[in-house]
């Protein structure tokens, strides 16, 4: 099991989510964050003084998934989140040892994959 953590532009969230849904990926957790990197800060003005704010709003998407789907998900996110300008964001991949579905107590892969229709 892997965790895919994508930092993207806030305004791209709708598109990314739509693209993932088309792929059948619906489980995800999303957080508002701010980030900096090589992107230039945004210019803000407060009573005649100009400030360069360099922590910019981003959105973090976390998806825990089975190993086989990792590359596919990376591809989809990359494509739908890209604008080509600096600040498009990053994707990080890390290991997840186990998962639990709180409602049922299922562990491991079962916790993050859809159960058979009947169970629902």
């Amino acid at each position, binding site marked *: 099991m892997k965790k895919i953590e994508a930092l993207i532009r806030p305004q791209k969230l709708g598109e990314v989510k739509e693209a993932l849904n088309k792929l059948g990926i619906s489980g995800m957790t999303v957080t508002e964050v701010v980030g900096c990197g090589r992107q230039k800060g945004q210019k803000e*003005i407060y009573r005649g*003084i100009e400030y*360069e*704010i360099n*922590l910019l709003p981003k959105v973090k998407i976390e998806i825990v998934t089975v190993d086989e789907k990792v590359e596919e998900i990376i591809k989809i996110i990359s494509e739908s989140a890209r604008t080509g300008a600096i600040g498009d964001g990053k994707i990080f991949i890390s290991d997840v040892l186990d998962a639990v579905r709180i409602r049922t107590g299922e562990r491991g892969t079962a916790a993050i994959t859809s159960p058979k229709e009947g169970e629902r």
Partner: protein
Amino acid sequence: MKKKFLSLLFGLILLPNLSLAGEPGYNPGDVTFVLLSAALVFLMTPGLALFYGGMVRRKNVLNTVAMSFIAIVVVSLQWILIGYTLSFGNDIKGIIGDFSYLGLKNVMDLTVSNLPGYVFVVFQLMFAIITAAIISGSVVERMSFAAWIVFIALWTTLVYDPLAHMVWGGGILFNLPALDFAGGTVVHISSGVSGLVAALILGKRKEGENAPLMPHNLPLTILGAGLLWFGWFGFNAGSALAANNLAALAFINTNTSAVMAALAWALAEWLHRRKVTVLGIATGAVAGLVAVTPAAGFVTPTSSVFIGLVGGVLVYIAVGILKAKLNYDDSLDAFGCHGVGGIWGAIATGIFATKAVNPAGADGVLYGNFGQLLNQLAGVGLAIVLAVVGTVIILKLIGIFLPLRVKDEAESIGLDITVHGEDAYKDLIFTGKSVPFS
């Protein structure tokens, strides 16, 4: 001793009822009524700014608010320079006022409706301001701020002022007469219809497909609705231009129509969606306030019950059903609320008006005078034509010199940062450095 000091300072206070220029006879009670009503109507524009501001997405709230605030600035200046005289100067062919009061000259010695001239000027100014501001509801989240500024300056001059003259300043609709107590035609039809035209010319917001375009801060919107409702008492009752029974009638009609339309909206929503929303109650109330505006001083409270009820339903249908079907992007429903509500109000005035409550008014259809309905429809028609033609011409003209919309990237990042260099809400986290003056 002290009294003497004070009387020296404040001069005229010992000579009540004597105007500065020796103009006698107006009643301080009426002056107070209209002057403070002007203050209430003023407050409606900041109220509208917040009402609208809460309904846009977080990234566009300041731009939305700025559109209303800049309307205060631009229209105030326009009004004292040429707006007042175009609207209320001596009539030229029933269409427009002449330049008798250009730059407010001669206003000092003027008496209008038994009020000092300045009182009437500022009261009317507040109407011109909010009319322009209402239009912004149709175009927020995408219109260029520079284009907006030029637009409202031209629109107030070419659409609002002639219409105000025609209806209130002694022009053709005034003489017909097409009744408009407090601005159903002048304020609401004109702004609502112009908003729709502007929305169509600008085109839709880009982001509606992947994410719903929903309010980011409803308490702000509710606050705005409260301030609007409060100010509307000055708007409608103040339009009696005197503190009398007519003003009180307009006051109670205003509240009655507002609550009936809110009720109508709530019922419609319940039947349609099985929920009653708080934004629905507020929107319904605004619909009712709009609908009763032209009628407030011409109808009975019982009539205003019906005006409100029907107004609420019509606006619900326009906003909640027709807009989706017709697929135009009137962002915050300036047309749905003010255009539709205003047209209904003008028609309703032709139905429900009665000389029994206001001998200076007219009888409507219900009181045996079918002709008044035709007068009202003439007023509606003329206002629509003027609004459509005026808005199309002005926007096409501006479009030659300036882009009407912000760039797609700016729309996507948000207009607050890209247009104004401001961020509405900052949480715990923000770091940066200031750039020294250069």
